[in-house]
């Protein structure tokens, strides 16, 4: 059984059908890169998997549990699937350490000492143990994004969704974030990431999904997708970005 099963998912915003029947199965430990032009529905798809958007048709299941749009099911789902955003979305009124501790204590009711220990461990994992007491606005973009990753990891998810997590970063900060993601991938974390980092996708990902106009246009291992694009749209897309 696949870890994440996306079946015939459709999503409309008003009259605009953004997802027109998406089918993807993700196996445990897979790293999936989702590429495509802006407006192709990549971010919407990720947001649907985390329940930030409701789907209109089809089904999504994670580790065998169906995604249903009520608070109880959503919470259960979100404990399994973490999400990292383009704009970091750290809580600005809390220190890095408290950012990582908060949801553990509030959602999982982890005792404070235990949550703090976990926070230290996770910040260390992303190379920021010395920034435990720093507020988000005292950190660089790359550091903030790494705290966001630590925050998601502290909930011990079985999969992580990354929504263009390096797109808001200065070029010199991109690598420190990608290095963390690469490490996670090496440790066997299941990842689905919307990305524009083609070299990274080629190096790290097990499969690449090319989305075009709300559909999965091509899907396959990176060597195949990047070296041997079958459709004109993907050829054009790669030609533009390379």
């Amino acid at each position: 059984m696949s870890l994440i099963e996306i079946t015939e998912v459709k999503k409309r915003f008003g009259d605009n059908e953004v997802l027109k029947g998406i089918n993807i199965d993700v196996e445990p430990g897979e790293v999936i890169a989702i590429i495509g032009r802006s407006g192709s529905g990549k971010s919407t798809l990720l947001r649907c998997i985390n329940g930030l958007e409701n789907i209109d048709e089809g089904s999504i299941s994670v580790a065998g549990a169906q995604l249903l749009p009520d608070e109880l099911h959503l919470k259960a789902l979100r404990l399994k699937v973490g999400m990292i955003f383009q704009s970091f979305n750290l809580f600005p009124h809390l220190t890095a350490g408290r950012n990582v501790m908060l949801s553990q204590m509030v959602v999982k009711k982890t005792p404070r000492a235990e949550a703090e220990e976990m926070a230290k461990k996770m910040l260390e994992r992303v190379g920021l143990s010395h920034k435990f007491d720093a507020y988000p606005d005292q950190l660089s973009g790359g550091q903030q994004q790494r705290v966001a990753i630590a925050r998601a990891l502290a909930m011990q998810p079985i999969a992580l969704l990354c929504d263009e997590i390096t797109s808001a970063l200065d070029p010199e900060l991109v690598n420190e974030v990608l290095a963390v993601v690469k490490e996670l991938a090496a440790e066997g974390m299941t990842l689905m990431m919307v990305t524009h980092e083609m070299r990274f996708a080629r190096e790290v990902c097990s499969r690449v999904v090319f989305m075009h106009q709300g559909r999965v246009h091509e899907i396959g291992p990176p060597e195949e997708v990047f070296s041997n694009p079958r459709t004109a749209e993907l050829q054009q897309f790669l030609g533009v970005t390379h």
Partner: protein
Amino acid sequence: MNDFTTWDILRNLLLAARWTVLLSVVSFIGGGLVGALLLFLRIGKSRLGQIFVRFYVEIFQGTPLLMQLFLAFFGLGLFGIDVPAWLAAAVALILWSAAFLTEIWRGCVEAVARGQWEASSSLGMGYLQQMRYVILPQALRVAVPPTVGFSVQVVKGTALTSIIGFVELSKAGTMVTNATFEPFTVYGFVALIYFCLCWPLSKSSQILERKLNVAHRNH
């Protein structure tokens, strides 16, 4: 024939000013409590609650405070309930303050970036947890300066209660004028006392705004 010294005038006005202060404090705190209640209805999930609060706010912001005072004072009288002026004044001012504070605070809650909701959702927090740990702490910081600023409006609003016969600073001014026939001196003092009450409030609102902004940038 004028037996009143300036000190007599000022002393009487200051004694009455105590009631202005008391009424302001009661209205502001009462309005804050009612306003907080309305805020939770307004940003809560119940559609009915939202509509009720919107309607409430429209009514109180769309009619003069003086009419609200009249309605509180004379309206309940129609039902045979004898409303003392102080009660009508307090009730009207509390409800009026609540309407404005709710709107101010709603703006502050909505000023918190959408990403904060999404991030806390994605971490599995429920609505109340998001509110308590993520949204309100940030909204509170934004809310302090305009809230303190609004208290100035409350102090000045209490002047209107003189018309329904509540003896506060303005009413006392009229009464003292009637006795002394020195309207310019008396109302000059009245204005001065109002200014002494209001200026520290608006000044502290400015200072708080600067401080909290700086704090927000650098912590």
